[in-house]
């Protein structure tokens, strides 16, 4: 049994799952649209929270936020579950599949057999959709993959109950009710307002535009404080978060620019096209940062930028993003 769900690759797993599920219910929203309505753009640098001894830097909000916000803003009802017993988690998923309902879920990637070996870290916030079962095999729409994949019962149960930081605990979700008419324009405006608010006004220096400046200041002192080797590791981690599978390039900045472009058409507000261009320029600056940072930790060529130069570049980026979101904050219907 296979549900008629169209698998479409996306840059980011949660956008992709949300977009693919919405398409199934005849709400054809693109990945950038989902990302923008869900206010997926963010920045945080938390030196006091470490993963594998390296501070956490992130270009997105917490996992689960995008799906939650998009469905709420479009008036779509969802159901979500969490389990302690793997067998129960699998049985209840099977029942939904039999009813023809595609099921989104959180998994850990370490035991995800179809993932390339190098990407199989102990990361537990990956999203995918299960949309069918034949004998002992499940059909998987994993937005990161180019094609439909399969997992056996045991494999799927294992990744749904991955262990470690933020264990998924069999979490799954599905769309239960779709309204006859959705307010797309209203949802877009709410999404833009929220992203602006998150980037500009959280009164803690680790988040949003302030967070970029915060990291810029700390990064400057990494070599003297940590030594070259550890500084390189810290820098490498920032690049990975910025460019790793799922960001669409430049820490989601390009997806957001694509969203603004699409939003300009839907809202009939051409000024958003200009802001989209500015966002593209910031994205290019983030790419420049990644390029120079990689040169720095590889210590080669004449383009070796010092940590101080990288810090200055981040300050410029922070200023430009601040300008952009000050403009976007004023959006209305």
């Amino acid at each position, binding site marked *: 049994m296979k549900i008629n769900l169209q698998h479409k690759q996306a840059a980011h797993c949660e956008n992709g799952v949300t977009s693919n599920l919405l398409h199934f219910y005849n709400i054809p929203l693109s990945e950038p649209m989902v990302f923008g309505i869900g206010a997926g753009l963010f920045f945080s640098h938390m030196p006091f929270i470490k993963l594998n001894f390296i501070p956490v830097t992130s270009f997105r909000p917490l996992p689960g936020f995008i799906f939650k916000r998009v469905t709420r803003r479009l008036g779509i009802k969802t159901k979500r579950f969490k389990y302690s017993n793997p067998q129960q988690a699998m049985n209840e998923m099977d029942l939904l599949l039999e009813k023809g309902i595609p099921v989104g879920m959180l998994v850990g990637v370490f035991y995800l057999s179809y993932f*390339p070996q190098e990407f199989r870290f102990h990361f537990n916030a990956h999203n995918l959709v299960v949309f069918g079962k034949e004998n002992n095999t499940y059909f998987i729409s994993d937005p990161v993959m180019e094609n439909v994949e399969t997992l056996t019962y045991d494999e799927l149960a294992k990744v749904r109950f991955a*262990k*470690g930081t933020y264990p998924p605990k069999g979490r799954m979700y599905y769309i239960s009710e779709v309204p006859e008419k959705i307010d797309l324009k209203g949802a877009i405006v709410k999404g833009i307002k929220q992203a602006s608010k998150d980037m500009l006004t959280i009164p803690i220096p680790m988040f949003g535009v302030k967070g970029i400046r915060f990291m810029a200041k700390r990064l400057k002192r990494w070599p003297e404080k940590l030594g070259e080797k550890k500084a390189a*590791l810290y820098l490498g981690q920032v690049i990975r978060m910025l460019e790793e599978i799922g960001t669409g*390039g430049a820490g989601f900045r390009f997806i957001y620019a694509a969203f603004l472009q699409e939003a300009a058409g839907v809202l009939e507000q051409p000024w958003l096209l200009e802001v989209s261009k500015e966002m593209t320029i910031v994205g*290019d600056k983030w790419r420049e940062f990644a390029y120079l940072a*990689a040169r720095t*930790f590889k210590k080669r060529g004449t383009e070796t930028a010092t940590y101080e130069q990288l810090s200055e570049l981040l300050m410029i980026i922070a200023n430009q993003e601040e300008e952009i979101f000050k403009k976007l904050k004023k959006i209305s219907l």
Partner: protein
Amino acid sequence: MKIKDVPQDDDGFLQEGKVRDLCYAIDEDGNYKQVLSIGWNPKNEAMKLALQLVDEQVENTKQAVIEGKLSPLAYYMGKNMMDVKLLSQYTGIPKRKIRKHLNPNVFFKLKPSLIEQYAKIFNLSIQDLLNIESVKISKPFNEE
């Protein structure tokens, strides 16, 4: 980023037709399109750096296992990027006991059911888990 600037630096991490990075880039008219990328050097370098770190730690453990100072369990734990806590969560074996099992004298005398529990988590056969030769020939990430 323009479509023509989307990097295609293949370093063996991604695979065409299987998994590539989906990037958003602008065409000649400034419209955003999706483009698949096989990789980008700065990112590939960052990836290698992270794997190198794992390799270094694993390599030290490997030597200790070969010299008989640690059990193969220590090696596979590192290779799977686990610590005692995570291994305990996966196997259900208490941390205190796992620490004891890192000692080769204790490990090689464990009952088969325990060895099997470990082997399952590492996707190994019981024979491979108990055989130090398997540790010797195991390759680091950067060579795989």
